[in-house]
């Protein structure tokens, strides 16, 4: 035989699914949310998206060059971080804020730990939280959605969750009109971060990921389910003060968080049991922060806290090895 054969250890076939394919699918799935954002917030949103994505890619290249590692931006993971970061920023973010976020996400959120697969926290959320704490004014200046808006005449307003928190702090009562705009909330016609406004678009993308089997139901279902159950308790106890579960579900970053941020593979548990636990933990923390914390929104903090708990969860939720469950020896 003229040419040399390949020899390797078994198995000799592969599913063909690769990391970059997975990443690309996630990127595609975020397109509807991006489109809706641009529709409601105009060129401002597009600018944030572009700056964040390019910023992340550039930071990744610089970091990997500095560390003498092969540059791996082609795998798409930095691009995802960029898009997710943009979706977690207000549409009116100034360019320097976005860029800073991108640098923080990749450099501090990911590369210092050793790059893809080694970061304990979701990089995009690390950046969002750092920005939120460092630049509270810019990070909580919300523009009202204006379909096909020019983006120039920004009207500042508050997010539904922010309105609720302000009202409760001032009067101890919830303004009833807050709960009347559910359809708008679902479609995305509300103030908020670029990507969190439209539950519809996010769910469309998530559906695609489910279809591609990249997403499993465990974390999103337990996360959302826990928020609904837990917030129902408060709502039923005091419907005048606390918003109903649907409000929790559709406003703020819950859908974005539950389907995209809390499902980041790297920073979540690997076992099924662990994922369920992770989702429940996120849900409980989210509701607690929303209802009793200083910030109106708690999804990102909840996810980051649970990220920190992931190694612990992994340790205690190891799947039972086949043959150790005790249903064996019957004879």
């Amino acid at each position: 035989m003229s040419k040399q054969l390949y020899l390797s250890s078994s198995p000799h076939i592969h599913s063909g699914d690769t990391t970059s394919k997975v990443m690309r699918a996630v990127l595609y799935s975020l397109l509807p949310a991006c489109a809706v954002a641009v529709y409601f917030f105009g060129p401002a949103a597009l600018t944030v998206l572009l700056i964040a994505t390019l910023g992340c890619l550039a930071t990744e290249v610089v970091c990997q060059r500095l560390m003498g590692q092969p540059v791996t931006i082609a795998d798409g993971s930095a691009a995802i971080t960029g898009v997710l970061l943009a979706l977690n920023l207000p549409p009116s973010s100034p360019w320097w804020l976005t860029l800073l976020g991108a640098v923080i996400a990749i450099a501090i959120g990911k590369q210092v730990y050793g790059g893809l697969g080694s970061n304990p926290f979701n990089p995009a959320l690390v950046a969002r939280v750092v920005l939120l704490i460092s630049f509270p004014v810019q990070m909580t200046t919300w523009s009202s959605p204006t379909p096909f808006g020019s983006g120039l005449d920004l009207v500042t307003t508050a997010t539904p969750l922010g309105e609720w928190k302000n009202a409760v702090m001032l009067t101890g009562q919830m303004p009833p009109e807050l709960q009347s705009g559910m359809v708008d909330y679902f479609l995305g016609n509300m103030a908020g971060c670029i990507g969190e406004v439209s539950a519809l678009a996010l769910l469309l993308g998530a559906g695609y990921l489910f279809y591609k089997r990249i997403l499993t139901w465990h974390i999103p279902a337990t996360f959302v389910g826990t928020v609904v159950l837990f917030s129902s308790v408060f709502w039923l106890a005091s419907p005048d003060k606390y918003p109903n579960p649907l409000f929790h579900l559709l406003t703020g970053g819950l859908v974005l968080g539950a389907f995209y941020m809390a499902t980041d593979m790297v920073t979540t548990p690997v076992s099924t049991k662990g994922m369920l636990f992770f989702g429940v933990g996120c849900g409980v923390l989210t509701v607690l922060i929303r209802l009793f914390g200083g910030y109106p929104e708690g999804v990102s903090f909840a996810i980051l806290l649970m990220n920190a708990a992931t190694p612990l969860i992994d340790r205690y939720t190891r799947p039972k090895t086949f043959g150790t469950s005790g249903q064996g020896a019957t004879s």
Partner: protein
Amino acid sequence: MLAAILSLGCIGLVAAIALGLAAKKFAVEVDPRELAAMEVLPGANCGACGFPGCAGYAKALVAGTIDLNQCPPGGADVVAKLARILGVEASAAAREIAVVLCQGDNRKAQVKYQYLGLADCTAAQKIAGGPKACPGGCLGLASCQRACPFDAIEMTADGLAVISREKCTGCRKCLAVCPRNVIRMTPYESAIHVLCNSHDKGAMVRKYCQIGCIGCHICKKTIPGAYKVEDFLATVVYEQDEEAIEAIGKCPTKCIRDFSDGYPEGSKLLPVAADKPHAA
């Protein structure tokens, strides 16, 4: 403001006192000689002494249960210092270093097949005896490099392990991980080696390697005492290699190497030493 300063100060004071007391109360008695020995030892925790780390060795030294020349990385220097600390006489063992007895990189030696999979020599060796056609040649998957605690092993671009004479401390970790036994311990003083590890007959060797020993005996005929040939493979007799250098030019496949004169092709270690010890 004042209250804050005072309260913080008080907390600090209380904590400091508590820590101080705890340190006193729970202090662990350590033989000062053990600490001194730890200071002197290289601290690489390489395990060449047979203990899990330098601390274990230091403890055993003070207890007197082990010789103090068991630390090859430390060399004569450390032995002398340890002897002073422990108040005993001792002489260092002769310094030995590891050498990769192969020059057959991916350009000079044939492979049987293209290996796909785990970049580890032991794992590759399990698949049809390793990709390299030569049964003794360096597989080039850098298992030894990863095992070296002293960063003394370099992989050339063409996939050959080369060990630095200066950085190697003789801890033998690389010997343990090499599935082909191509790394040997040699006296530091001997810089001349036959860089081949194949016991196949000359005709076989020629088929798969341009630079392997073919067992032609020319080196042995040139300097009879300095070389021996066993099973079609020549080796340097390290005890009497003073004149071994004379045979280098005679070797038809150029597999005898003077390391003080440079390392195998492709290595970034010492290109050519300015002053050759053997040239005098």
